């Protein structure tokens, strides 16, 4: 099952609304209303079992993303195989 949010605030709202929480979240960073880092912080505070894989063009936030508990960090453009590999590892 796949859900789509177009900004950090939508991501957090959707996360709260799901009774069964998503196991993996592919999170961009530079987004309107709320950034990926802010959304990830809130989501992990609610449920730290969710694995957040950052997929962003902004390499300056790598350290920050990993320090707040991101599962992995990928810089765009990302090869599909790499992304699928990260998702498989996150789901284990």
């Amino acid at each position: 099952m796949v859900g789509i949010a177009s900004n950090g605030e939508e991501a957090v709202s959707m996360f709260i609304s799901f009774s069964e929480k998503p196991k993996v979240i592919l999170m961009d960073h530079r987004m309107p209303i709320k950034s990926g880092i802010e959304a990830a912080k809130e989501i992990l505070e609610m449920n730290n079992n969710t694995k957040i894989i950052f997929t962003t063009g902004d390499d300056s936030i790598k350290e920050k993303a990993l320090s707040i508990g991101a599962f992995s960090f990928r810089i765009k453009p990302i090869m599909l195989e790499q992304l699928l590999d990260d998702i498989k590892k996150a789901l284990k």
Partner: protein
Amino acid sequence: MKVLIVDDNKENLYLLERMLKNIGHEVVMAENGKQALERLQSDNFKMIISDILMPVMDGYQLCHAVRSNEEFSDILFVFYTATYVEKPDEELALKMGANKFIRKPMEPEKFIKIIENLLQNTEPSQVKPKKDIFKEEKGLFKLYSERLVNKLEQKFLALEKEKIERQRIVQKLRENEEKYRVAYNRAELYKDLFAHDISNILQSILSGVQLTEQFLGHPEKFEYKKKTLEGIKEQVIRGANLVSNVRNLSQLESVKISLKRVNICKILKNSIAFVKNAYSHRKINIQVNSIGEILYIQANYFLNALFENILTNSVKHNKNPMVRINIRVFRVGINEVNYLKIEFLDNGTGVEDARKENIFLRGVNEDKGAYGIGFGLWLVKNIVDSYNGKIWVEDRVKGDHTKGSNFVLLIPEVV
């Protein structure tokens, strides 16, 4: 012969000493008139060469003291000055009893010639002036005070001028620092955001290509592959728009492009044709309802970019099979000024209330860690500002952003 040289500037003393010693004279130094008088008490000199402007006791006072003392009646007195150089200064010096008044700077050879000539050709009776300076004391001191006041006034004016110049330089430095800071921040922002936007475009293209590759041997996936290829084409167009927008924005911010009378209807027509062509794979219906065919504003060639970006934005953020954009152009009067109001109503995904204010911004809203989007809309805002206009976004259907947006432009009309 022994010469006493008097100057508060050590470099001047050194140079004078060198010149006089080179021609065989013995030299003693003093840094002001008071020190000079002390030296005179303990030694015999043939000549005194003195500056005028000195602390503690100046040259005029020294000369007066020397000429008032019979003990020193045979000592030649030469003024060598850079500050008191006007005719009245020289007159006072000679009245004080100086034998010579020399203005700095003077070529060493010429200076030495004058000194040697004085030393060799001045009769003892000629050393001290015939006039009794005591009788003219009151007049002398009046003159002395006048010269002093004159010098102080000149110095004060020079200081004032210097102060104004310093203030001007400081102001210029501040302006340059501010320009540098703005330019640096702009460069950093462009670098970061351009890199970010290009990364997203490349990601979409890469993912599209890889997905198409996966279904190469699957004819039943034709529609899916067609849609993916259209998506790739859109990303390339997006990339081209990005480059164009960055170039335009850079020009807009760095160079003042002059405005002229432009017919917006003509530019609008061209922009509609451009966007339809760029997105030929999409079904796009654009209607224009205008109060006239010829409507003028003060603008420039960026007007094309303005309309193209608004229209492109409406197409990009629209998931409907048919993109509908209704453009309304009419006149409004505000505070006795006529404006053209141009509305772009689309059936796209709309703009949430929380984003309506920031949608034209680039960079970070520090409080929420949020980012504005779109170089395009940032460029649009900058262009509208340069036309002394306004732009904002509303819901096409009031209160329901999901039904689409209304981008509203307000630009002063010209006849």
